């Protein structure tokens, strides 16, 4: 019995859909505390998060049992709080994971749950809400941008196009703007808020403005993003590079190619430095302990999933741009290719690494670059081929 009849519900009690907050017509039979407006939303929620937290919701949504003593009551309340906090984190991570995997639609219900529990625990105007707002905004935004990208097959087309096609994604922008406005308001009211949060907020605002083709404001927000990220992590950190990358995209779209070029170079240098450091550490360890028990070394990028996804996205975009002007500056293309090779190598995705290495090698040969350059690429290639000898179990 999934169906409920709103008229049968006691007066004054309104049951809302878990996803859209319209009046509910269905109930989840497993927990009997979660309502939906229709099959579509129920299914979406189930796929996204409800499957994982269905049973956990029961104690939160039923009234507390009768406790005999004050002590027990306090204990019960404390338990409830703990549960909610746990759920906040859990939903947040789940949503994040969906986002990295590119399942933006699935991320939304999970993020919404996280937001709702945060409101319960911390109140409406707490800074704690900001990460959830940002996540939701990102889900909507990225969803929108990807929608366009799928149409035009490249992020660049989005920027070069003068008119945004009126597609269903537009509704998403409004959604994103709403969440971002909420987040901004919360941050504005709070006095203490970390630089990292500020940076994230401004990056999303920048992306929003980009989506709305308001490049003037987008530049302002991205500049703020870079500033705050620099305050939090330093100017040469990979977490700052995202701001530079988006800024470069804007300038590229505005056809200020020399400006965009220096910014892309900056982004590639940041990633090159980071990946090269890790690569060097790895090869050092390899040289020192060669043949010791035939032990294989874990390649490690030191990045989490989101950062890895970001790295791939940024670097491939830069590569596309570099390749479009490859005739003029093959060195820059090879530079980006090398970074990508290192990235995939460290991520232990050897086939991809090999593909990029081959491309770099061929390009270097074609353009008759110096021997030194060819040799370094050859070295990388050999290393990867050797790795592929031992497939990962």
């Amino acid at each position, binding site marked *: 019995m999934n169906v409920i009849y709103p008229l049968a519900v006691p007066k004054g009690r309104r049951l809302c859909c878990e996803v859209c907050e319209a009046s509910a017509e269905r109930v989840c039979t497993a927990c009997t505390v979660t309502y939906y407006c229709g099959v579509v939303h129920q299914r979406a929620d189930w796929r996204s998060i409800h499957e994982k937290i269905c049973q956990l919701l029961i104690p939160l949504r039923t009234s507390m049992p009768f406790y005999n003593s004050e002590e027990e009551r306090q204990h019960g309340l404390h338990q409830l709080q703990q549960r909610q906090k746990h759920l906040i984190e859990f939903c947040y991570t789940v949503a994040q994971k969906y986002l990295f995997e590119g399942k933006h639609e699935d991320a939304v219900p999970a993020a919404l749950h996280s937001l709702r529990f945060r409101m319960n625990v911390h109140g409406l105007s707490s800074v704690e809400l900001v990460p959830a707002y940002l996540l939701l905004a990102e889900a909507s935004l990225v969803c929108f941008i990807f929608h366009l990208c799928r149409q035009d097959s490249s992020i660049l087309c989005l920027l070069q196009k003068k008119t945004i096609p009126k597609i269903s994604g537009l509704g998403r922008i409004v959604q994103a703007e709403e969440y971002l406005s909420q987040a901004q308001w919360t941050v504005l009211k709070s006095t203490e808020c970390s630089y990292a949060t500020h940076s994230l907020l401004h990056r999303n605002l920048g992306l929003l403005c980009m989506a709305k083709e308001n490049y003037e404001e987008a*530049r*302002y927000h991205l*500049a703020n993003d*870079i500033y705050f990220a620099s305050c939090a992590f330093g*100017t040469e950190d990979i977490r700052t590079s995202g701001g530079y990358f988006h*800024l470069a995209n804007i*300038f590229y779209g505005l056809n200020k190619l*020399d400006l965009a070029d*220096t*910014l892309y170079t900056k982004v590639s240098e940041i990633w090159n430095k980071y990946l090269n450091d890790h690569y060097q550490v790895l090869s050092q360890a390899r040289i020192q302990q060669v043949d010791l028990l035939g032990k294989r070394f874990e390649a490690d990028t030191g990045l989490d999933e989101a950062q890895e996804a970001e790295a791939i996205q940024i670097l491939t975009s830069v590569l596309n741009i570099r390749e479009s002007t490859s005739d003029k500056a093959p060195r820059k293309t090879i530079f980006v290719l090398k970074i990508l090779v290192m990235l995939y190598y460290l991520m232990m995705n050897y086939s991809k690494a090999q593909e990029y290495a081959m491309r770099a090698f061929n390009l270097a040969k074609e353009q008759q670059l110096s021997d030194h350059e060819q040799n370094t690429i050859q070295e990388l290639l050999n290393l990867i081929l050797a790795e592929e000898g031992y497939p990962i179990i």
Partner: protein
Amino acid sequence: MTTLPPVPMTRPKLTSLARQKLPCSPRRIPRSQLIKEKGDIDHYVEVNFKGLSKEEVAAYRNSYKKSICVDMLRDGFHKSFTELFALMEKWDALREAARLRSLLWLQRPLEEQPDKLDHFYYYLTRAEVAERKGFFEDVYNNLYALACYFNNSEDKWVRNHFYERCFQIAQLIKIDGGKKEAEAHGHMGLLFEEDGQLLEAAEHYEAFHQLTQGRVWKDETGRFLNLLACESLLRTYRLLSDKMLENKEYKQAISILIKASEIAKEGNDKKMEGEAAYYLGLAHLAAGHYETALTVLNAYGKISTDLDDDLSLGRAYEAIARVLQSQGEMTEAINYLKKVVNISQNNFQWLDVVRASTMLGDIYNKKGYYNKASEYFQQAFDTTAELTNIPLMDETKVHYGIAKAHQMMQTVSNYIESADLASLDYLLSWKESRSDIALDPVVGDSRRPTMESLYQTSEHLEEELNGFPDNVKDET
């Protein structure tokens, strides 16, 4: 009853927008509508109210430092931003260090110095534009302007940073035949010299000198760069050799000074050449090569005479005298020193007079001419008294006292040796009248008159020595 038509109310746009949002408004407005309205209101406020645009609000809310950074970044000046950001971090670190050292520190935070931030913004962005276009000369000029702006004692390290940057950029400039590079070398030399790293400084100055050789470049004040290079190089060489002489590495010091004098000769500046010769002579003297020292110093003397430069002539003679003194040729030395005293007196170089007189007194003292010695020491002492240079006065006082004591000792011992009653009387009366200090009777027949005069001088002496009795007693 006819209903009147509704009064045409002309509301400003803002109120009408706000009215629609009033809580009592009957219909529920969809969110997308609200967001659109928000944009409209923002736009309206921005257009119609001065100073209420988002950016201006941000300018009030944020620190000036942040506004500058954001301004740089939104126009894509990321290199400027990185540089400024690094400098600001260092600035804060330095302030923090200064704060830990003492409670009172004067360095204000950068946020409170908008002038400096403005300068950073102006020049750094211009430099970056030029760099993007490949106009390295402009880059250099802008960076150099910044270095000049921070050329004060408080912000030395900022200046140094930009000198280094100038140096890097200058190496890319090829069109001007290396003028900028030369200048940059000069600045780097200065930087190292101030830091006390003389070897590095000399390296840069050498490059500076080499690049400017045979060129007629001038700096902004109109001086020849080549001359400037020579001067700096000589100065560094001299400092280097001084250090080596301190460590008794005479050979190296002399070889460096020979190099210096060769450079000076090429520089076509007689005065500089003379200077170089002078220091070379001194080094030879320290190393004990008296003959060479003499020839070099004589050359210096000759240059000075040619230039009509009495001061350096005095110095030359003094140095020569010192060499002669070391060689043991006292009469010659005395001659030169007397010349020095004369020259210095004519030029009112009182310190030189004091030094020369003291040396003269020393020589006489050693040879046993105490009268002469005390005469010169007295001259030195009188001069210092006029100069009111207390430490120097104390020193000459001691010399003078010693000479005087030597002078008196002879007579006293004569009395004691003669061992007759009259002498004993003299000794006794002297002792009675002067319990502390030796008083001088005079030998032989003409005792009386000289006694009188000596009493006077010794009285005079005692007054002077009041502040310094211990040393004098020891010496006597």
